[in-house]
């Protein structure tokens, strides 16, 4: 195993719940410092791919390795930004208390966060432009601000791999730009990033690699090579409309919202 190259490696991964596997035969090799956009229709297994890497979805076949060792042995090196709907925002905690949760594994059992942890929380809040809102009740924040709280919580983990599930869904323009800038900076600093998204065009614009998913990995490669009508068609089937307009390729899903959606997708 030690001969494996650095970065995130998936070898023959099959994952899912119950009887049927949502994903099968996933082989990926993602070097450190790569920003990967994960693209696919609803129910295609985008979230499951992220959760399989995190150990949250049962992996029935294959292996997930980080720098040559199973990720299960080094979960503290992975950070996760779930879909915003995953938690109860009326919970009585402040933004900085939520961000501090990312430090808990470092803090350890029976201890309270120390000065270093509090500094990390302050820095992370500043990086997501929420320095003044650390004390705010999370339910009082806007959708974009809530998403940035989640992002700050992932930042304080100082992880090697960052996985984001639909980070741009239902957020404002300012938040969207901030997330893109932040992901780019983290990538430049050597973090491996996978972000699942519905926004194909923005994914193609910001990502180093695109990973097209529909129950398996349909294609993986730089946007210039993979953001093509045959691959899009193979991923989305008849559910989409592709419009060429000069240099741009616009993609419209059948009945789905693409682009900065106002509503979270169903599922």
């Amino acid at each position, binding site marked *: 195993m030690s001969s494996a190259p650095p970065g995130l490696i998936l070898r023959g991964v099959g994952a899912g719940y119950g009887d049927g596997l949502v994903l099968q035969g996933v082989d990926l090799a993602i070097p450190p410092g790569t920003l990967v956009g994960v693209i696919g229709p609803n129910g295609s297994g985008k979230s499951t791919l992220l959760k399989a890497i*995190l*150990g*949250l979805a049962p992996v029935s076949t294959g292996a997930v390795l980080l720098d040559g060792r199973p990720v299960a042995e080094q*979960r*503290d090196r*992975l950070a*996760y930004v*779930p879909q*915003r709907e*995953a*938690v*109860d925002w009326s*919970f*009585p*905690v*402040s933004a*900085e*208390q*939520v961000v501090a*949760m*990312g430090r*808990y*594994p470092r*803090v350890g*059992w*029976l201890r*309270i*966060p120390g000065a270093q942890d509090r500094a990390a929380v302050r820095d992370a809040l500043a990086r997501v*432009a929420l320095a*003044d*809102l*650390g*004390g*705010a*009740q999370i*339910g*009082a*924040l*806007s*959708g*974009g*601000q*809530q998403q940035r709280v989640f992002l700050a*919580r992932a930042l304080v983990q100082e992880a090697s791999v960052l996985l984001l599930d639909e980070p741009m869904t*239902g*957020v*404002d*323009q*300012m*938040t969207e730009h901030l997330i893109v800038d932040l992901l780019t900076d983290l990538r430049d600093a050597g973090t491996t990033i996978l972000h699942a998204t519905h926004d194909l065009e923005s994914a193609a614009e910001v990502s180093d690699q695109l990973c097209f998913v529909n129950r398996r990995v349909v294609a993986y490669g730089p946007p210039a090579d993979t953001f093509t009508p045959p691959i899009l068609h193979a991923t989305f089937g008849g559910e989409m409309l592709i419009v060429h307009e000069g240099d741009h390729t616009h993609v419209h899903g059948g009945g789905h919202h693409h682009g900065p959606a*106002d*509503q*979270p997708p169903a599922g």
Partner: protein
Amino acid sequence: MGWLTDPLGYNFVLRALAEVVVMGATCGAIGAYVIVRRLAFIGDAISHAVFPGIVIAYLAGLSIFGGALVAGLITAFGIALVARGGRIREDAAIGIFFAAAFALGIVLISTRQTFQGDLTGFLIGNLQGVSAGDIAVSAAVGLAIIVVLAALHKELVLVSFDRTLAAALGYPVFALDALLLVILTVTIVVSIQAVGIILVLAMLVTPAATARLLVDRFVPMIVVGALLGAVVGVVGYYLSFHLGTASGATIVLVATAAFVTAFVASPTHGLLGQRLRRHPQHGGTSPAVDAPAGHEHGGSAPDLGGPTRDDLRP
């Protein structure tokens, strides 16, 4: 002041007051978790399900506390097990267990000559009959619960707020959930003596829900809930003493009165407070207005200053 001090001349009153303070504080504290984790129904189920354990222990002359604890834990984990199968949902599983266990308790106790009196004591509580030993057990249990809640505070809050993150970080999510159920069961068992099976739910939910209307952070919610639980216990007991009413039920009505008062008049979340305050809209689709939704800018002043760092620091 005779109405306040005269009752204190009776030893049974002193014991009852000690018991309600301990019971009210413990229930009010754990109630914060009952509220945020939505455990009210499961709490109700456990409180009814401990009944056969109490009856068996009572008939066999064993420790009532022990019998209740065993029955409560069997129920809590039985519910978790049945609901895990997926085909039967948790609320249905709770309904099945809680009614069955309660029925078993009634069948068992109906074999006794003193059926009516025994049953009433368990159902509505019997503060007059509290012994010094009961108080010692309640106090020890309450103290143990506070120690556990404090020691595992950040892990319990993490798993309550975001169990996905807790699992991703490698925390034993199921064990932490189970621990919370054990704490809940123990709290219920020691509270039944004071308020009875039917009303213990009110002590778990009402003071904590009242606290939620008054504060916006979890630790203050636990502390305020515990204080409220103790205060309504004492006030309710005094009222019942002077009015000659059932003490457990009177305590519950006092707790309810406190809740209604907070619901109407809480400066932050009450009906009146909301009416006095401008109530800016917020939500997922709002544009990039980087101001909080003004929940802590008390009073009626319009929000002029932009984001204000509030003083409710953790």
